């Protein structure tokens, strides 16, 4: 069964159509990459998947639940990590994880969830420091830990390694592979096509609000006789 389906989705803001027809599906346990240039419609699509924005037309389902009509059910099984997200600056890392765990469980179960989150964040003693003292890499590790600690069925991450140094980006990708091995479906968006090539099982290329291509990185590279996804994208868009 597909963990997520996106069928001819459109999104209009005022008089501007940001998403003009996007289709793809994501299989359970896959790491799926949504790639495209800035302004292609990736974030709008992820926000619609995450119940944050209303879908103008089309349909999105998560594990069989319609995002538009069963948003409460969808929120129980997804985790969304926005691009450049932050945490509440006056809280410590531990308090932030506790606050977030409180939405999913109580008592011992919540404690267990926080312990797992702390393990994933791997911040050592700094977990008890205030969030506003964290570096960008530490903040991202905390947020990823927050996103995966409630064991979501689908994790949606927008530009997850954007702005991180090589070491931190590497660590984050390791975490993503790990949770995928545990059965979590991961959807990431990125304009870094090399990262997606390394990480994703399948990708959908988006340009100007439309799906241009969909397939495994290997298939796409072979089809366009290209050495990397960036080349594939340029050939697909420019013909």
């Amino acid at each position, binding site marked *: 069964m597909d963990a997520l389906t996106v069928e001819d989705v459109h999104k209009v*803001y*005022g*008089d*501007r159509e940001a998403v003009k027809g996007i289709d793809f599906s994501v299989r359970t346990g896959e790491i799926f990459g949504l790639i495209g240039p800035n302004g292609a419609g990736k974030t709008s699509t992820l*926000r619609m998947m*995450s*119940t*944050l*924005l*209303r879908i103008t037309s089309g349909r999105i389902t998560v594990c069989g639940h319609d995002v538009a009509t069963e948003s*409460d059910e969808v*929120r*129980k099984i*997804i*985790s*969304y*990590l*926005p*691009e*450049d*997200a*932050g*945490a*509440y*600056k006056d809280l410590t890392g531990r308090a932030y994880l506790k606050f*977030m765990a409180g*939405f*999913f469980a109580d008592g011992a179960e919540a404690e267990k969830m926080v312990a797992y989150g702390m393990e994933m964040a791997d911040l050592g003693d700094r977990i008890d420091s205030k969030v506003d003292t964290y570096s960008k890499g530490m903040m991202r590790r905390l*947020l990823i830990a*927050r996103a995966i600690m409630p064991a979501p069925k689908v994790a949606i991450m927008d530009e997850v390694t954007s702005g991180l140094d090589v070491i931190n980006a590497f660590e984050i990708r390791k975490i993503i592979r790990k949770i995928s091995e545990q059965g979590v479906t991961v959807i990431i968006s990125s304009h870094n096509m090399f990262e997606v090539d390394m990480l994703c099982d399948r990708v959908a290329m988006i340009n100007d609000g439309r799906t241009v291509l969909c397939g495994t990185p290997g298939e796409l590279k072979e089809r366009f006789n290209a050495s990397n996804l960036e080349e594939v994208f340029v050939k697909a868009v420019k013909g």
Partner: protein
Amino acid sequence: MNHLLNIVRKELKELMTIGSFVSVLIMMFVFMGAGSMMGDQGESITSPSDIGFINGDGGLWADRTEEFLISIYVDTYGISEEEARGFVKVMDIPLDDGAAIVEGMRSLGLDAAIAVGPGYSSNLDNGIRAVISEYYIFTNPGLLGSAGSSITSLMIGEISDRISQALVSEIADPDLTPFLLSPIKGTDAHTYIDGELHSGVRPLDISMGVMNQTLMVPVVIMMVIMMIGSIVISSMGNEKENKTLETLLTMPVGRTVIVTGKILSAAIMGLVYGIMYMVGMMFYSKGMTDIGGLGGSSPADLGLALGPVDWLIVGTMVFLAIFCALGLCMILGAFAKNYKAAQTMTVPISVLAIIPMLLNMFASWGSLPTAIQIPLFIIPFTHPMMVMQNLMFGNTAVVLAGMAYLALFAMLTIFITVKVYKSDILLTGIGQTKLAKAFAGKRIR
């Protein structure tokens, strides 16, 4: 290009938005309106009004006092003697019957009357200071309106001066100099209020006393509303800037719960701030009362004290007003894209809090014209600010209507907030709409 000029141009371009100018314009109109209202009140004080004259003596000096009063109208207001006689209403009522005096004043539509009693003329003839009594019907016209009672006192002083001049020209006894300089004791004031005639007070004293007791609540409410408004709107701006709001909105929790949680926590903070300010203001008020002459009359001594039920009503009104303010702030905060934008969003809330507070300082609900009462009623913060005065003076219908309106307003704002939280506006702002493009984004060129 000059570097300084380059920076100034860029900064001005950022700062000179239509939004910022609208905020300042609104404040300008508020102060203009308040000034105009005070001017109207001042004009009504300085224009001649009817006054009653009760002659309980029948002697020569009583008649001359009436003539002096008429001549004072002529000199003060520049009107003819005939016109002045029209303003001075002679009342034939026994001075020992306070109720009859009040009834007589009411029947003639008078707010003030002066009276001379038996022995008035003989006292003046015999070198004994005489008494002119003042009678007022308190109609709660606010501080400015009540200032009219001072004019009556000033008139009595002027009458005393004219009697003094007349006496000096007729009596030349150096032993009587103190009497000749001040032949009238004008300290016998009586004010009818809430069914009872109180001696020793004038309307201005009562207004000052009431204001001392009731000013605290509007000031505290204004400060609390401005403070929590700023906190809530800024917090929304921060949540958006840090994208914590996006994360929160994808949690498995209803939007109503998120909205209620935010409002409730801010309301608790508002109450804490309110109590702290109230304690501070109580000390301030006590200090003011302790300064002689500034305290006015105690409303409790005049039977205007608030009972436990009244205080419960005041508390409920304040709580509802805080809820209304928070609802409005949540709606405005939803449109703020970031912390900086949030700062300008607090202006409408501040304006809505300042308008009734300013009006409350100078006028009472009953003294305002309907054209001002209607917009004032619509502003939710008016009701808790004027509730104490309205309760003191028995305007129960206004209090109950205000409470019902506040409850409805609070529910409506929370309903709209939840709707906004369920819409795209929370994330996209109004920047994406045609209206916003036509207005909010435009800069002054």
